[in-house]
């Protein structure tokens, strides 16, 4: 059974902060922590699919939302998942005001760097979770 930590980013298409969330999630799952994480598309959780419910219930999740509606965190919780950490791109941006994101299909340099910073934060959370599991 796959027990990798699920990284669930915002699915808001056409939203800059949603794009940063997805870009950050890809960096974590493909580059920084591919052995211990995997990405979960939010759209998979919306239909009432029992297989997906089991899948999300068996793993802990880190959600990355692009706005305060926090769809990712809410949907994971409502689908029976465990939200170990709920991140907001806006909160990360507030700590790095020089990395102003812009663009949607193609993020600007600030957006790409913000996604990288976000990914590092997520990776640190993953390490912390893994450490607790190992202890």
């Amino acid at each position, binding site marked *: 059974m796959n027990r990798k930590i699920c990284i669930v980013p915002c699915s808001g298409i056409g*939203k*800059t*902060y949603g794009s940063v969330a997805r870009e950050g999630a890809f960096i974590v799952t493909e580059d920084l922590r591919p052995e211990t994480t995997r990405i979960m598309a939010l759209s998979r959780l919306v239909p009432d699919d029992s297989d997906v419910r089991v899948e999300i219930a068996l793993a802990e999740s880190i959600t990355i939302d692009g*706005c*305060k509606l926090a769809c990712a965190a809410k949907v994971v919780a409502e689908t029976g998942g465990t939200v170990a950490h709920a991140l907001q791109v*806006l909160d990360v*941006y*507030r700590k790095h*005001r020089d990395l102003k994101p812009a663009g949607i299909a193609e993020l600007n340099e600030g957006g790409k760097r913000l996604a990288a910073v976000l990914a590092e934060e997520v990776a640190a959370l993953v390490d912390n979770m893994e450490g607790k599991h190992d202890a």
Partner: protein
Amino acid sequence: MAHNPNEDLELRIDKFTFRFPTGLRFSEAGLWIRREGGLVRVGLSDFAQRRAGDIAFANLTPAGTVLGIGDEVASIETVKVNISLPSPVNGIVREVNSALQDTPELINQDPYGNGWIALVGSEDLEAPLNGLLDAEMCVALARRQAEAELNPS
């Protein structure tokens, strides 16, 4: 005077409900004011904050600044835009909401309460107050603005 949500006028557009307290006056730029003795408290209306989007940063004009109507009382950076907020009244900034420095999202969460922006003192409040919109007029203005955005021609 505390804000009583039961006295708000409401405007429903699509899935959104916007609130307009009847005890406040509003500027066309979307700021509200409330008389508090010889001071006026200034903030951003529910409609204006929703339209602006999630606020990342709020920069407030410091206490002691002399404001004319239209001078910038604050500026906000949201996930969508940067907006300069023009003062709806003349006067001197007596106090600003320092909580907005670390938690600017208070404007989104509680626009008529903890998300207030500034307290302004003025010797002549009546004239500018009379030029502002009451809640009913502001609802009508917001409806026109929303319809214009939804149905651009």
